């Protein structure tokens, strides 16, 4: 039996707030690297004039995804900036907006009617050139993920619309407002994977999205919309396979080995935009929520500094800003950090909530053990890590941690369990 901890959703207002288009930034700070995999190099230099959608960073490597300019203007600087993708400052291209909105040549597109006759290689090439990466937070290049070896038949495509993170509502709004686009995107992915069965997984608490999805996917072949009760932890790809398909994916194996691909709705939305409309990934929907009076869902250009978003919404009094979800996201050290392809939400905590809870001694209550969705023993790993015994941590399967943060969430002694387990995991 799975251990699942309910975490309050805190989405009541935000989930009813339509997506609002956030104005283009005056200066865009576009990270050269927003993906996992090979390191990109800038294709532009200071002084260059770029247009919207122009490729500005790329690298020739198998696991890679290029980056495009979100605005038109002049490159004024290439410098390191602290950001939400890495724990240290990384390279970013600063582009000053000229307000002309000149567009670069769009990507190759295909017509919807031609989808069936298009070669997979061609679709994957469009997806790669559009710079699409997993937008749920992982940032793995989607073109690589969807390039499944021919000898590995895919039986199921799970469209991940669970959005388990509390406070996050961006995916939910995409499902409500871009439903038709999602249908197009699912068709592309389904074609790429050799027509597997499609299950659109969402939570029954998304009352507005569920009927929309059911209506839109009604006539799609071999497709099912499954609105069930899912906890936060079941938004993870592995946990979702267990919840929906009933098996536990073998640890350490690539997802396609199990015959299933799990793809997040925001990414599918981006795939549809790229393949049919020729739009590279230069904007995304991000929730603006937390301890603020009016939560919002913003369509923002990637590269918009977080400070600009806060300023435009007159948020001045927070103790910390979390990017990417309360449970798994990072707290920003500076507000210069820009929106990236992986920024699903921008959450403000007031000073009282931001204050770190003081860790005290473990009382050995065992709650973290019963809460870990993948049945680790966080307290044992924690004890090994603070002694520096990473060998022991490995024996306790620290490397399997999905970094969901549930252990820290429940610990009555406020111990930073998740971050320690993560440390052990990353040291493997």
């Amino acid at each position, binding site marked *: 039996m799975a251990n699942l901890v309910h975490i309050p959703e805190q989405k009541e207002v935000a989930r009813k707030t339509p997506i609002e288009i956030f104005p283009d930034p005056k200066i865009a700070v576009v990270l050269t690297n927003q993906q996992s995999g090979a390191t990109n190099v800038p294709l532009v230099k200071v002084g260059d004039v770029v247009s919207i959608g122009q490729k500005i960073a790329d690298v020739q490597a198998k696991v890679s995804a290029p980056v495009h300019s979100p605005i038109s203007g002049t490159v004024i600087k290439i410098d390191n900036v*602290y950001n939400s993708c890495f724990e240290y400052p990384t390279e970013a291209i600063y582009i000053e907006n000229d307000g002309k909105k000149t567009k670069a040549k769009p990507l190759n597109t295909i017509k919807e009617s031609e989808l069936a006759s298009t070669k997979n290689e061609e679709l994957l090439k469009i997806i790669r050139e559009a710079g699409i990466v997993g937008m749920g937070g992982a940032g793995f290049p989607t073109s690589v993920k969807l390039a499944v070896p021919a000898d590995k038949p895919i039986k199921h495509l799970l469209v991940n619309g669970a959005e388990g993170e509390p406070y996050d509502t961006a995916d939910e709004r995409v499902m409500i407002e871009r439903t038709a686009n999602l249908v197009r995107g699912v068709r592309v992915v389904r074609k790429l994977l050799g027509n597997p069965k499609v299950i659109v997984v969402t939570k029954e608490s998304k009352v507005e999205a569920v009927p929309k999805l059911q209506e839109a996917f009604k006539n799609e072949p071999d497709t099912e919309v499954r609105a069930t009760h899912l906890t936060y932890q079941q938004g993870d790809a592995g946990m979702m396979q267990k919840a929906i398909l009933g098996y536990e994916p073998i640890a350490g194996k690539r997802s396609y080995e199990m015959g299933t691909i799990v793809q997040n709705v925001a990414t599918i939305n981006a795939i549809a935009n790229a393949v049919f409309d020729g739009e590279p990934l230069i904007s995304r929907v991000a929730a603006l929520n937390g301890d603020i009076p009016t939560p919002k869902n913003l369509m923002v250009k990637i590269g918009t500094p977080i400070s600009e978003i806060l300023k435009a919404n007159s948020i001045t009094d927070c103790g910390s800003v979390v990017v990417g979800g309360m449970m798994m996201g990072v707290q920003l050290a500076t507000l210069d950090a820009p929106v990236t392809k992986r920024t699903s939400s921008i959450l403000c905590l007031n000073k009282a909530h931001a204050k770190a809870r003081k860790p005290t001694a473990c009382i050995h209550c065992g709650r973290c053990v019963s809460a870990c969705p993948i049945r680790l023993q966080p307290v044992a790993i924690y004890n090994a890590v603070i002694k520096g015994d990473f060998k022991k941590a490995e024996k306790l399967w620290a490397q399997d941690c999905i970094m969901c943060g549930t252990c820290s969430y429940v610990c009555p002694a406020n111990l930073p369990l998740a*971050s320690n387990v993560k440390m052990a995991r990353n040291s493997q």
Partner: protein
Amino acid sequence: MFPKKFNKPPLKDNTSFEKVKLMSENSNELVVNPAPHIHGPMTKNRMMQYTFFAILSTLIVSMVLWSQVTTPSGWNLGLTLAICTVISVGLAVAFDFLIGKVASDSEVNTWSAAVFGLIVTGCYTLGFPSMAIGAEMGVPVEAPLAFYYVAIITVLGLVVFKKVMGLAGRKFVNPAAAAKFLVLLPGTAVTLLTSWHSITGMLSVPSLNGPIGLTTIVGSNGGGAGYPAFGGYLQSCYQLPTSMDIGTPESITQIMLLTKYHGWTGGACSIAVIIAGTALFILGRKYFKWRITASFLVSTAVLSLILSVAFGDADLIARLLFELFIGSSIFMAFFMATDPATTPYSGVGQIIFGVGLAVLTVIIQTFMGFFGGSLLALLIMNLLTPAIDKIRINKPFGR
């Protein structure tokens, strides 16, 4: 000890990029901690508060029940219990505070100390001495001597077993149980040496190592172990001292479940303990180790039934009532065996712990004639906890 925070990177000033001052204007730093950034509602203090009020409610029930009894020394038993409670809680909190002030590496933990104080009183034996069971050897069961013993156990338990052991990283034994055992050892050691007792044995308790029954009529058991009139023992030991009832199976059952006027103060009313304990488990869902309680109670019941059949008891409930509902079993099952620090953290470990505790308790009470032997069983199981923690049955997800 804790992971270092992300270092805040230096901001370069020579930029044409409009520097953001939004929050740094008031020279406020942004808080940066590792994920997650929200926390569940349960904290250590809250757990301790829940436990405190659960135990307190059972003690209040005992006080009310026992206020009907006046012991030979002239003290009202309910009042004695109230004073014991105040002494143990007061001393525990005071010493906790003092140690917290003096020793820099010890945190003041008022609620935890208060719970400890309640447990010291709850597992202390009070009652009307020299009844059918004869002299209570080494266990001062009435005021004013009881006050001194409670005070000594509290201070010893808090200082030695709670604080000093806490310095060693983790507590190995339940502090209240260990302190009580140590203080009363001179009086009870003798019972550990005897392999079995009859009514004339060292602790003057009947032997369970043979057939027993709920009857109150003393009959012959053929000279061997066992005590056919065990029901009579229970009746006379636990009933209202002023009552001269002979007792029936019904009245004995009622006494064991509802009103015992002797024994562990916390367990005077078994039903009250069960209600308070269950309420605690429901309130603090998943934070309390209810599996220990459940597995202990179930295996104790099963073992008693097995022994009843094996010994050829006159009925099946005499042993069951005794093993399950004497104060030392019922109070310990809910409030001492579930002490987080000294028990296993995994669900499987907790079940192993509960079963082991039941086996040891029944063995000690049956073959060693040490009624209240759950205390010793608990200490043994506490010491085994680190080993039990190593047992892993379920592998991680997808392994």
